[in-house]
């Protein structure tokens, strides 16, 4: 069964027809040709497909495109203008927060979403005082970024990049 939906992707309004089984990730990659979000596991276990959906980070492989008619989606390709880098993305380059680069767009989107969450004082598993403002120390960054696997093992540099971008 197919459905026609509209998505606002990286600032562009896109109408597309999807199989109702098509995930948001596959809609972006296979239907719209936006391959910025990556498919690492297709089961929500690795985070490579992370995008911002209505401003919040989601694993786009675990949600159906048809459920998001009219939604706004931002991928790592759309965080900044065509020839610009978002400060988080810039920090990833400067700190070598990646090697193969495959998990990276998901890491960057996740970091952008995470900084919003921490800025809004959402606690995490390692937050000591759930009512106090969040201090984004390394332990907080590590915990909040643990939904994004990096097999190259760039975690130390990812933390350094986010630490800098959070200032």
């Amino acid at each position, binding site marked *: 069964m197919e459905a026609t939906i509209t998505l606002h992707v990286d600032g562009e309004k896109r109408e597309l027809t999807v199989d109702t089984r098509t995930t948001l990730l596959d809609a972006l990659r*296979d239907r719209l040709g936006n391959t910025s979000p990556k498919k690492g596991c297709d089961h929500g276990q690795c985070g490579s497909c992370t995008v911002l959906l209505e401003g919040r980070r989601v694993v786009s492989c675990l949600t159906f495109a048809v459920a998001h008619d009219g939604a706004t989606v931002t991928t790592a390709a759309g965080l900044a203008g065509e020839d610009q880098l978002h400060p988080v993305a810039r920090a990833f380059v400067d700190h070598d927060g990646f*090697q193969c680069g495959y998990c990276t767009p998901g890491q960057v989107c996740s970091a952008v979403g995470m900084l919003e969450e921490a800025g809004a004082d959402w606690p995490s598993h390692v937050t000591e005082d759930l009512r106090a403002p969040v201090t984004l120390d390394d*332990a907080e960054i590590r915990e909040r970024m643990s939904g994004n696997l*990096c097999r190259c093992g760039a975690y*130390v540099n990812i933390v350094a990049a986010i630490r800098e971008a959070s200032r």
Partner: protein
Amino acid sequence: MTSTLEPKSMGRPLTRVEGADKVTGRAPYAYEHPLSDPLYLHPVLSTIPHGRVTAVDTSGAEALPGVHTVLTPGNAERLADTEDREFAVLQSDEVSFHGQFVAAVVADTPETARQAAGLVKVDYERLSHDVVLTADHRGLYRPVEDADEGPSADTAQGDVEAALERAEVVVDHTYSTPTEHNNPMEPHTTTALWEEGTGHLTLYDSTQGVHVVRASVATVFGLDPERVRVVAPHVGGGFGSKGEAHAHNVLAAMAARALPGRPVKFALTRQQMFCLVGYRTPTIQRVRLGADRDGRLGAVSHDAVEQTSTIKEFTENSAMCSRWMYAAPHRRTTHRIAALDVPVNFWMRAPGECPGTYAAEAAMDELAHACGVDPVELRALNDPETDPQSGSPWSDRRLVQCLREGAERFGWHGRDPAPRSRREGDWLVGTGVASASYPHMFNPGSVAHVRHDGDGRYEVSIGAVDIGTGAWTSLTQIAADALGRPASDIRLRIGDTAFPSASVAGGSSGTSSWGTAIVAAARAFRDRHGDSPEPGAEASASAAEDTVDEGYSIYSFGAHFAEAWVNADTGEVRVPRMYGLFSIGRVVNPRTVRSQFLGGMVMGLSMALHEESYRDPRYGHIANGDFAEYHVPTNADVGDLRADWLDEEDPRATPMGSRGAGEIGIVGSPAAVANAVHHATGVRVRDLPITPDKLLR
């Protein structure tokens, strides 16, 4: 030995030249090249480990709208050359392992292809199977040796048994490591396009060697290699598993040839990667060390038992590291393998050295405790003046310097050597050390091309691949110094068989092999065209085969230090700190090399604590084949990791003065963690991974 390049660009921490493309996700991987009107392949995998396919019912799949073809052993094209049986895809009804391709669907959409694959009904005749490796397996044999290049399966010097008999202190233990899967983040993917009119096959592939894949695929299909193009500008990791073509390359090409003119996209699922693209064999290693009371080694014996598949032999040379690591007059190493009804095992980061060094360095830690000698000093005491296997002088052995300087920087000294001697609240705290080594590898046959674009700008082309190592950047720097230009004047082109032949990105040999070719091409260019060339002037050259100075034993070395905290009640292990100090010759790019070291250390930490593929003995499949159950470290599992290196160059290795960096980080780091866990708890876990249950027994 040739003169080394003057480092002007080399040694500088340039950020990755493809960095912006990667952080935005615009860098195209194998699935992502914009091609019109693609089709999608989904395979059907065998559900038995051994037997034969008796019937394939494709009617349900073929009836589904949008299905273009269903390939089966009955209708697949007959391949020209299947001497390598890994590539004999759909060529017979035989099933040799669980997860083998038995059919494939090609359809208009990925959803349809997947649904149709689920509708293909396969009947089997089951035969008895054997998928469990044991130390006394009846099928164990000495691996077939490749007389031309393969290392010997066994070595013996002196009389090990007599020396062990005489030794004042003997350590004799068996260590095991489980099946482990590489799991690069980018699943193995091939997009294949067959153009019938021209007879050209193009593969956009996730590979560590475009020329390697081209050679295999051309052979299998009986095609002129010139008609096969393999493209891989960016590859999402490999760690060895993408070092050669695998069956999926053949299946994708086969499907493309059945459907000319339409690109066929085939990305393995994460689950399928546990069946089809190689893995590290489980190992069972007995290590015996004989020493005097001061810890001076008289005998080293290292016997490795491993598995391979029935269709293709691959030996993990785990005992080899004990041939060069420490001095001892009496030594023996052996490898025995059993061919089981399992998928083909293959390279995984530092094949051989990684599991072998875990066992050997854990045994050295046991010897240090038995002798009451500091583990750092025990290793220094047994440091050989010349290569104990060949007697050759070392090119640049700085293991002791790595150990002693590393110990200072880590804060090793002052520890109470007694196990279980430090407690912080609920946590038992310990520290561990291990040595690392990796041979300098150089693969001949790489060719580079240099062309002057004008205005002092140069295009440098070589069919190398960057799987995340930093080759885009480091080769640019090497080319810059070879041509005497700033890096900004170099336009590097890699990742395509349209560029000259290049060896695989494997064995920590890429930068050495390709860089040497680039230096040769730059020198040929200057010889022919001088320092003021016309625009369009060009030259090609290959790296001389005798680049490496043969009179010397050339290895990289390193020392790993780890601090482990083990929860006294739960057995949970945390590793807040790891430190590695390495000697690898000149570091071409400090930024990317540091990342390689850290990445190897993370994978070593992972091997020590997390990774294990559990093969179900009843069905022969991996029962935990995805990221929910096959654990790799997350960000929160990794603490304060640091890596440094000694400032040096090794002109005997390459004209850059560099050796390799990709693998040494994973060599030794698992043992450092395991040794730290023992120091913390007094429990010696000899079977990786060190999971909490093993500490609470």
